[in-house]
């Protein structure tokens, strides 16, 4: 396996203008909604890699090695030695069909030699938890499933996803890796610290949270955000992710991030379910702890990769937009921390998302995560 990084910016266009690699079978690319919406980037890539599967999405910032930026499109072209690929695109018109959509994609990718799945999904019109459940139900819990939900900076207005087509909203793209050469390592960690009282989810419907301890959830957030950050809702709500767990299973907690707020209903819509009766606790992040979390995710991915030391490696880093909103320029801390774990020989790119998909570090069950850094590393071993 080999991979090559290419970038695009309005001033220079694609750099390098012509790829060094031959037999490129897969291209990932990530950029802001504004840079991808016109479809020119896809068309240019298609022209450069006529035989490759090309998948990408809009983001809340792109990760390119140890840099985070908003002003260039990052892409990676990959050539596999023996690994076969299959790409599936599925439109989704109704959020309530998220699980069904996951099942459709999963079933289409399912084959006896399926070794892993990577998925990119619309970040605003899909219930990520349900999508993942549908996928896992179709491909089975043993197949590594990673990916992320597309982002839209701090705007939360529209996210785009494309697979062998111009990126568009309400799209889910999954790519299956087949054969026994491919190695996929994955890791996911947050580094957020819970704080303040534990609260009870006293009213919620699916991923819409109405009340915590009988108080409207949005009121609580506004109080914590203060007048300055309240103006930045819903994006600023990401500064205080929420950790939820079933009171009967306190060890299986998940972190949820806000997708939207309803000022009238004083409710908040999260990227995954917030079941009524569960326990919730606010979280906050410190730069060092978040960077440490990113390093932890990278470590997990490396451990799981089982690749030979000399082998070429390619890693996709998907980190939550909330982390970036909090850390500002210090966001490079987490990218560098992850990079340090992955090593120089790994080609690294990624993006800031509205949700991360990866198996749970403890339970091994694939889930939708929020506010984490998720690292998926690919390598190929010789036959």
């Amino acid at each position, binding site marked *: 396996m080999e991979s090559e990084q290419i970038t695009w910016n309005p001033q220079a266009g694609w750099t390098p203008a012509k790829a060094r690699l031959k037999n490129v079978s897969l291209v990932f690319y990530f950029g802001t909604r504004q840079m991808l919406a016109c479809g020119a980037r896809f068309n240019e890539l298609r022209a450069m890699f006529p035989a490759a599967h090309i998948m990408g999405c809009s983001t809340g910032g792109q990760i390119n090695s140890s*840099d985070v930026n908003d002003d260039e499109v990052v892409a990676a072209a990959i050539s596999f030695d023996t690994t076969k690929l299959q790409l599936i695109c599925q439109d989704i018109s109704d959020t309530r069909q998220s699980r069904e959509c996951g099942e459709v994609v999963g079933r289409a990718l399912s084959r006896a030699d399926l070794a892993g799945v990577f998925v990119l999904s619309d970040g605003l019109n899909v219930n990520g938890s349900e999508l993942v459940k549908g996928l896992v139900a179709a491909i089975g819990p043993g197949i590594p499933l990673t990916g992320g939900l597309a982002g839209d900076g701090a705007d939360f207005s529209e996210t785009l996803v494309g697979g062998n087509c111009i990126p568009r909203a309400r799209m889910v793209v999954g790519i299956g890796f087949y054969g026994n050469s491919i190695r996929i390592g994955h890791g996911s960690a947050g580094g957020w610290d819970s*704080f*303040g*009282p534990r609260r009870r989810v006293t009213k919620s419907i699916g991923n819409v949270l109405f009340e915590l301890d009988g108080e409207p959830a949005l009121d609580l957030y506004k*109080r*914590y955000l*203060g007048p*300055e*950050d309240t103006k930045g809702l819903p994006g600023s709500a990401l*500064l*205080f992710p929420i950790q939820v767990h079933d009171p009967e299973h306190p060890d299986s907690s998940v972190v949820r991030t806000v997708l939207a707020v309803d000022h009238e209903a004083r409710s908040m819509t999260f990227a995954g379910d917030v079941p009524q009766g569960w326990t919730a606790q*606010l979280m*906050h992040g410190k*730069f060092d702890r978040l960077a440490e979390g990113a390093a932890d995710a990278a470590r997990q991915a490396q451990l799981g990769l089982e690749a030979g030391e000399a082998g070429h490696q390619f890693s996709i880093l998907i980190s939550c937009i909330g982390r970036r909103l*909090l*850390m*500002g*320029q*210090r966001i*490079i*801390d987490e990218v*560098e921390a992850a990079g340090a774990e992955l090593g120089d020989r790994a080609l690294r790119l990624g993006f800031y998302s509205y949700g991360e998909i990866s198996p749970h570090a403890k339970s091994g069950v694939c889930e939708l995560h929020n506010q984490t850094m998720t690292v998926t590393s690919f390598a190929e071993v010789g036959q």
Partner: protein
Amino acid sequence: MHHLILKQIAKATDAAGAVNLNKLAALVSGAYEEFDRDRRRTDRSMLLMIEEIDANNRNLEQLVAERTSELKAREADLRVQNLRFDVALNNMTQGLILYDSSARLIVCNHRYIEMYGMSPDVVKPGCSLRDLIMHRKDIGSFKGDVDEFCSSVLRNVALGQITHSILEATDGRLIEVVNRPLQDGGWVTTHEDITERKRNEERITHLAHYDALTDLPNRALFHEKLKQRLACIAPGEQHAVIYIDIDEFKSINDSLGHLIGDELLKSVAVSLGRCVKETGFVARLGGDEFAVVQTAIEDQQEVSDLVARIYRSIREPYDCLGHQVTTDASIGIALAPQHGSDLDQLLKNADLAMYAAKAAGRRTARFFEPEMEARVKARRILEMDLRQAIVDGGLEVYYQPCVSLADNRIIGCEALLRWRHPVRGMIAPSEFIPVAEETGLISELGKWVLTTACLEATTWPDHIKLAVNVSPIQFKDDTFALKVVAALAASGLSARRLELEITEAVLIRDDEAALAILHQLRAIGVRIALDDFGTGYSSLSYLQRFPFDKIKIDRCFVSDIASPNGSSSIVRAVVSIAAARNMTTTAEGVETEEQRRLLRTFGCTELQGYLFSPARSAAEIKMLFSSLRAKRKVMV
């Protein structure tokens, strides 16, 4: 240099290596702003969190305080409940032990420990059933096999069976032990000293079967025992059922008081017991009625001998609380199976025989005879016919003149009741009056005779008096005097023309009440005659007690007045007593001139009898008055 500033410099440096200072300054400034914002955010959130946690702490503290006081209150409640439970448990009359499913004592009360004089050091929570029974064995309050007993208890508990047993303690107490299995596999045992209860039960059973006064079997037990005897009567064997009614017991009670009456009954009971052989028994059926049952009788003579023994002992004078009391009895005898082997039949027959003995004048015994039943039946028919006659007007009042011995003139008439039976014709008063007295019909008849006769007498000449007989039964009615007044008022007859004839039985029974009535009658002017003098007790004290206007000498004295050694001396004596006390005398049943002559000689005032006239109907008597009046006019 900080890696951030290095990154910022890198970002502000163009491809040619020139640093854009403005860009760099903007990046550095932005980083400062970000730090400030993050610090403000952190400060704010920490402050809020502290407030929230403070509030939560306060809530928790309040909750803890509330819960603590709740717990304290509950604890106090529990203490009170425990105390009550303890008081209840230890004030139970029963001994109580609660065992758990492994047969170990959970709780037991003091009563249990006391009941068997056990040691509280042994009998305490945790001690096993076996330890406990073993301890009882050691101290001598349990006599059985310990292991066998424990196994039996555990077996029944396992089966979920409630067991009741009554055990006799070594000191003779009776203890009822109840084991009740519980749902959790344990059980509760209660021990109750039922010695007193059993004794009371026995007492109650005794009271239900024995007469409290004499301690003889009562009627219920008598029936039961007789029934048993009848059931196992051997062929050729006879049982005798002897009913004994103490004659005139009521008079003894009335005259000497209940205490002496009771004493007499007790003495009779003892005497009867002595008369009966081992195979027989005595019972008190109630009041003055006793029964003797003698089984395995060989012949009637044996019964007669027994009855003779009974009479001998009853007729012995009894010393009752210092009073010498003599008494007698009417006895009825029925034999089984000769007179019936069915209990009811036999009892009825013995009763009939006793009734016959009474009817024969008491103081005698009668064996049952089938005719007795017929007689009773006939009597019942007579009673029914009499009731019908009252309704149908089958009764009539006849009048027998009473004549002055001095001038042979009619001076009065005695009203006599006559019953003309539609089938049997005329029925003698001696036949139906006792029936009327027994059934209470006499009151109605008496009232009717009085009213009818008073009305009739108003049609007679003014100097002719009316005599009406009054039964002792009528004197039991407190309003009798009023009834007489009412009859006089209704008819318009002068009280001076009415004479009421009573027998000495009126005075025997309820002296004071009867005397009061007699005085009331006397007060309104009614004359009182003593009837049938000389036939009963003829106690002269009666004459002393009430100033009668007249004595009627019974026909039995008149009939042989003329014969040598006859009753002339008695008649003379009576007449003389009467004269001395300003009473007139009427001789009844005068049939011959000789009798009239003698009576006149003795100084008797009046006569009644066939010699002058039998009793006549109202119409006939009126005709007699008319004819006599005419004769007198002719004579004049």
